[in-house]
């Protein structure tokens, strides 16, 4: 592994950490515009993080050590996930670790810890949020795995860097399987990132909330880390979607110039994706929690059909 590889890996992590709150701010701005409200500042998430890091930490009386370490574990999982997703370059020192199944496992690890921590303090909201989070998680994970598998069938490998490499250098061809997988991936990422048809990211203290209920007891720097982790998760999902379905512009090995071009390409794609996410959220209504299994069963079904079409049409 050469210097350039380490540099691009470092750049990718730093970029993820810095850009993730900006992406949230961008999506919120678009949502406000679409709903005819005056938009909040693009840098509001940074200010919020800064404020939370400087606030005093209040811990519940019966909080166990698990409750204290969870924000760090969740943040670490999300940072690692955004590091192994090839968003800028496919020539990364971490690429042996960037496996599709490992990625899903990382998200699952974060989910298990945050659900345990939410139940740890023993408040009703935390427990309820943890249950709902697990309900969504166990339905979303198989669908996400199927999406990644249908992409890996095209490249005959579950390594994310190999998948992206193959997809970026293919001839121009129509892959119906990728279209199915793309729709399924959009549905899964809406559910996983607590966006509107499944959960409303704008509500706080409501009976319908899922993600907010999990972090309700946290304060100070713990809450800041969790918020940052949530924005990193959205960033990681967006990068994964862009890398799988729109892989153009991602640099391959040994070319500094391509790396230089990959950065504006990624930012452009993320900006477009963020605006699309805001539009998607504005046109749909939040569904009942008991409709969520149906929504995610549809995502799973689309992903499975994508795989079947891939295998049986032989393309």
């Amino acid at each position, binding site marked *: 592994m050469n210097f350039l590889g380490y540099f691009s890996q470092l750049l990718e992590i730093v970029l993820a950490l810095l850009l993730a709150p900006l992406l949230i701010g961008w999506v919120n701005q678009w949502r406000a515009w679409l709903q005819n409200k005056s938009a909040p500042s693009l840098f509001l998430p940074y200010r919020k993080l800064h404020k939370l890091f400087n606030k005093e930490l209040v811990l519940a009386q019966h909080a166990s050590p698990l409750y204290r370490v969870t924000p760090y574990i969740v943040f670490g999982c999300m940072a690692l996930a955004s590091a192994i997703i090839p968003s800028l370059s496919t020539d990364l020192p971490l690429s042996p670790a960037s496996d599709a199944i490992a990625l899903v496992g990382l998200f699952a690890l974060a989910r298990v810890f945050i659900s345990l921590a939410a139940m740890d303090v023993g408040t009703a909201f935390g427990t309820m949020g943890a249950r709902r989070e697990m309900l969504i998680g166990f339905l979303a994970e198989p669908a996400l795995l199927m999406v990644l598998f249908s992409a890996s069938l095209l490249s005959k490998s579950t390594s994310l860097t190999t998948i992206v490499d193959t997809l970026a250098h293919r001839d121009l061809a129509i892959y*119906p399987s990728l*279209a*199915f997988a793309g729709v399924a991936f959009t549905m899964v990422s809406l559910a996983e990132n607590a966006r509107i048809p499944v959960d409303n990211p704008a509500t706080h203290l409501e009976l319908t909330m899922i993600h907010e209920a999990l972090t309700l007891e946290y304060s100070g720097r713990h809450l800041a880390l969790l918020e940052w982790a949530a924005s990193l998760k959205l960033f990681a999902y967006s990068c994964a979607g862009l890398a799988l379905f729109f892989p153009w512009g991602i640099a391959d090995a040994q070319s500094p110039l391509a790396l230089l071009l990959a950065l504006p390409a990624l930012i452009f794609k993320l900006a477009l994706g963020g605006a699309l996410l805001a539009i998607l959220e504005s046109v749909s209504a939040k569904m009942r929690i008991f409709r969520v*299994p149906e929504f995610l069963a*549809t995502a799973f*079904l689309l992903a*499975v*059909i994508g795989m*079947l079409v891939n295998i049986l049409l032989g393309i």
Partner: protein
Amino acid sequence: MTAFISQFINLLAAILLMLAFSMLAQRRILSLIYLYTMQGATLVAATAIVGFVTNQPHLYFSAAITLVLKVILIPSLLHRVIDRLNVRWDVEMLINIPMTMLIGIVMVMFSFYLAQPISQMSSTIARGTLGIALACILLSFMMMITRSKAVPQVIGFLSMENGLFFAATAATYGMPMVVELGIALDVLVGILILGVFMFHIREQFDSLDIRHLEKLKED
């Protein structure tokens, strides 16, 4: 170029499959009719493209018949029927939707498996899509089974005919003209008769639930 067009046909076939699944999962009658119209339009595109690639002018005629019949005439008839019967409410399912979808996946696998040896023997450009056509037929059949109201059952029947039509195009470049015209007429007459039939069911039972038909005696 040919490779690109055959990929495009595959894409249209995949869209047909997706539409069949969304019909299976749809709760509203009005959306069902829209989905049926979209299925017809996709079928028209697929038939016309196969006709264009293989230089078979008679496929243009079948595409035109499909366009007039399944995209314009039958959907407008169905709209009139549900207007006059005043049935826009949610469709009642006999099995819940996620379960229906899972059974649907199994049926898709089955039909792919069944169609594979047949499509290997065939030499047409769209031979790979035979499995999808078969899956569409089975899914529409399942839609007829899982609905208890008359209008969704009729739509299921019509969409099954779409699947059959696509299978014929995929496997043998369409049926002979006489057969095609005959089937088109059959479908048209069928929908008229079923429309009359629906009015009679409603008059007799004050409901479109066909489970009332299972009873022999009035209670």
